[in-house]
């Protein structure tokens, strides 16, 4: 039993190490020409623009729900005036970045894992190499960078749509004006709340892009392998995002002590 657990732990550590080396190689290759800007732009569009409807819809829904929950709690203490600020803080500091990361792990992670996996099993990656194109730079580096660029932007969109969702819920119940709501919402939010929390999503983007690209790029065993790469991309990227978030929040509090207040 102990031996079995040991083997499992060794396998997990080995896999994590391989993914880490893969990601570091991508970052190293990212600063070396050629830069594949055309493909990078296409990927930013794929990852960012095409995820926008999902992020906007989720942001609005989360804003409404958070507003209702916050109201239920703060009403007991007669502190309804704090609802917009509390909601904005919760969104900007944690909910927005984490939910955006997890949603993108689902939408983009599965897509990248399946796309690269299919390209591997149908020899399209070999065809790129045979055409004298560095498939790692062309396919992997561009996707990882696209995720790292798109995540902070989408998180900002998620934050704003969440606040708008909160406003909609609030204005239906209390008739609060747009101007007053936003004044109260942003009265509590500082740059030290927004910047570190949003920048950490670049790490989430790195995780999503790296895990999904690794699983897709190294796919074996035909279409079954493609399906597995897609599913595992979502599961493993989501787990890594949740675990890394704990570490990143702790680091944020260490570097920006005011953000812990």
């Amino acid at each position, binding site marked *: 039993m102990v031996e079995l657990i040991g083997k499992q732990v060794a396998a997990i550590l080995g896999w994590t190490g391989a993914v880490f080396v893969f990601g570091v190689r991508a970052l190293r290759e990212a600063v070396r020409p050629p830069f594949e800007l055309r493909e990078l732009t296409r990927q930013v569009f794929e990852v960012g623009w095409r995820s926008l409807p999902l992020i906007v819809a989720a942001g609005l829904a989360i804003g409404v729900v958070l507003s209702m929950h916050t109201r239920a709690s703060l009403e007991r203490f007669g502190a309804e005036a704090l609802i917009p600020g509390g909601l904005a803080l919760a969104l900007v500091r944690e909910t927005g970045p984490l939910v955006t990361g997890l949603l993108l792990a689902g939408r983009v992670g599965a897509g990248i894992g399946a796309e690269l996996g299919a390209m591997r099993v149908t020899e399209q990656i070999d065809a790129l190499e*045979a055409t004298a*194109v560095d498939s790692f730079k062309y396919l992997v580096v561009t996707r990882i960078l696209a995720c790292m660029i798109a995540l902070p932007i989408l998180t900002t969109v998620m934050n704003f749509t969440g606040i708008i969702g909160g406003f909609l819920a609030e204005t239906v119940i209390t008739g609060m004006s747009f101007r007053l709501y936003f004044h109260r919402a942003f009265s509590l939010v500082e740059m030290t709340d927004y910047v570190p929390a949003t920048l950490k999503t670049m790490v989430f983007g790195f995780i999503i892009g790296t895990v999904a690209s690794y699983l897709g790029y190294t796919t074996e065993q035909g279409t079954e392998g493609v399906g597995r790469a897609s599913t595992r991309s979502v599961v493993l990227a989501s787990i890594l995002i949740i675990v890394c978030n704990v570490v990143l929040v702790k680091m944020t509090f260490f570097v920006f002590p005011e953000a812990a207040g």
Partner: protein
Amino acid sequence: MRRDTAVRLERVTKAFGGRRILDDVSFEIARGTAFCLLGRSGTGKSVTLKHIVGLIKPDRGSVYVEGEDITALESRELARIRRRMGFLFQNAALFDSISVGENVAFPLRRHTALPDGEIRKRALEKLDQVGLADDYKKMPAALSGGMRKRAGLARAMALDPPILLVDEPSAGLDPITTGEIDELLLTLKKRAGTTLVVVTHNIPSARRVGDELAVIEGGILIAKGTAADLDRSSEPTVHDFMQSSGAG
């Protein structure tokens, strides 16, 4: 090695998962000639082609392309050599996210500074040579297997490479189209001096196109020579192969 040698394999051995796919394979292909690799399915013919383009590195032995040992090259150097080769994959391996025409234009966009109009014109010319001029805008998924194969050949020819590696060009094609593809390969060889390395099961096609034929059996090169040489072979596998009318 002769100065006019385009490709040379020297004692190449390769195993996957403990199973030996190529065993001490050596041969030499002269510039501007057509070399046809014959053999039953799974005997290592496609693996041999992938060694020549550097997609697979041998466990032992060397692969020389135009005098350079590509097994010792770094990726940038290998890319330089690959630009001088075209490769038609067994399953065509078209990029399925872009149109057929853009597949053919892809190598031109990557490796030339030609204006967009000229690239489109050249891609169209290549598609016309394989009978797919009307299919420029179609997506690969909309093509039949044979059409995909021809589009793959057009892409392999896009940069007018001095060496063309072709994996089963007639698989999935009707006899008339097979004849047309054979004619196209012969024209490339005669007019442009292209060196052809063709993997095929189609014996009539190999007889028509190949200056030299070789038979691989169980990863071992068991015979090599002209079609007439192989016809006289006493090796049963070679004899069976040469007497078969196997097409496609």
